[in-house]
């Protein structure tokens, strides 16, 4: 038996021993508040209940912030790191899809970019077919991958 296996066995035995040790006395009848709180830090319980509710509250916001779990090769562009240029940001009101980092990530992952046709340094352009609210068209995305700036993001029908 090599050292690594022995080490794993030791950890497993220790964990089992710790688990088997007598723990604090817990509730033996949960029909009432006092009975159900024996051996329990009620502050943690109530904080947990509040969190259980609040996390459902913010679930959609958290999802937007989570963005995409990028299936990235090391060094690839991560949508969460990008910022909009002032010009691009000025279109946000009329292009509500700009708030979705997941959409930006999907566009970047779905096709190979080309060098920016206008010749901007370190800048790539994606033109990807797709739909927005059911309408067919093309997603256009132009990103400076070094400065992490989105110069252009639009859906053209």
């Amino acid at each position, binding site marked *: 038996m090599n050292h690594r296996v022995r080490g794993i066995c030791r950890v497993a035995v220790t964990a089992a021993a710790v*688990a088997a040790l007598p723990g604090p006395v817990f*509730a033996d*009848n*949960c*029909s*009432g*508040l*006092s009975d159900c709180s024996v051996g*329990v830090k*009620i*502050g*943690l*319980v*109530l*904080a*947990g*209940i*509040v*969190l*259980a*509710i*609040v*996390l*459902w*509250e*913010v*679930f*959609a*916001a*958290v*999802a*937007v912030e*989570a*963005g*995409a*779990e990028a*299936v*990235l*090769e*090391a*060094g690839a562009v*991560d949508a*969460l*790191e990008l910022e909009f240029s002032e010009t691009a940001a000025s279109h946000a009101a009329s292009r509500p899809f700009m*708030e*979705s980092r*997941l*959409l930006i990530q*999907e566009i970047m*992952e*779905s*096709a190979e970019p080309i060098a920016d046709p206008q010749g901007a340094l370190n800048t790539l352009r994606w033109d*990807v*077919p*797709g*739909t*927005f*609210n*059911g309408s067919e068209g093309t*997603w256009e995305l132009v990103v400076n991958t070094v400065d992490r700036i989105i110069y252009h993001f639009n859906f053209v029908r």
Partner: protein
Amino acid sequence: MPLADASTLDATARLFWRRIPGAAARLSETLRTVLRDGDYLLAWPAAAALAPPLVLLFGLLLGAAHPGLVFSSSLPVLLLLAAVGGFGSSLGLLAAIGYAFGDLLLHGHEGMGYAYGVSRFGTLLRTDLALVNTYVILAGLLVVTPLVATSVRRHTQTLVRSGSAGFFLGFLAGGLVQALLAYFWAQSAAFMIRPVWSFWSRAPDIGSINPLQHGAPWIALVTLLAVAGRAVLTLKARQRPAPPNDRPYVRFSMRRPWPWQARVVLRSALFTLLLAGLFSSLLEAGALFVLLAGLGVLQYRVVPAMQPYVAIVNRIPLLIRIAACGGGGFLMAALVVQPAINRGSASFLPMVVAVIPPLLLAAFVLPKPAGGSGR
């Protein structure tokens, strides 16, 4: 002999991790994010193609064959479910759906504490609704918690831009947050699953409460280990070439949000259900529903109109605002619940009362956008 050729596996993998999430976006952008959380598996097409159906089947079998009335009747079942959640909210959602169907349709609930000779409607309200409540609670561990951790991880990785340091710090922060939330979940779930018994005016089965109260540290530990496993897989995935995509196509929908009134009613109903284990009468449930609806009006209509307050509060990181609400719960427990316990109170009403101020705080620190994305 291979089970399927490479192109079939690639197509199946993309179906599960790209096309289905893309189609789900028509229902909800949040659902799309959940279904993609775990797509590091795409680096291994066979795993990406097989994991979703296998996890669904795994959940179904656990739901059908778990001992006792609910998932918490067995610590090993809890630990297995927690481990799945550690690998992402998509697999967690599939496990929760599988468990719900297995438990509701295949698990024998007869003769396990339920009364006989009750009308179908009575069973629907008392048995099935209580079970649905347990599935929502389970989804808190398997779907909500991993997505919050993903959000924390991604933000940490964005803040610490340097490659490997950011990667590991991100997973460390996300893993610790997920483990901590799993610990809190276990503590609170012990109280929130009570409707399975309390709807029948019975005392809960302590064998289904203790694994949550006693096993909380183990649930947190297993969650942390699973997140570590996910980190290893994600690291290996980043070292592999990006999966091929011979049909680039991106669908995106922005659904018109539901009317705010409908969202307030729905969230009030959901939260009343989550807290149902603390009520001793329908009157208490009705009163809380009305109170929650009032808080919803505050959150959706009154507070969003309070500019520039909203702009200022939105600058505070979301995690800190969430933690403040949890801290409010901790404080209220000391002020309201612990004294009631010291008096030997049997009623759970002090807990319901203590939950209101932190939720009032949430209405002010987590205002909904005035237009409401509702996605």
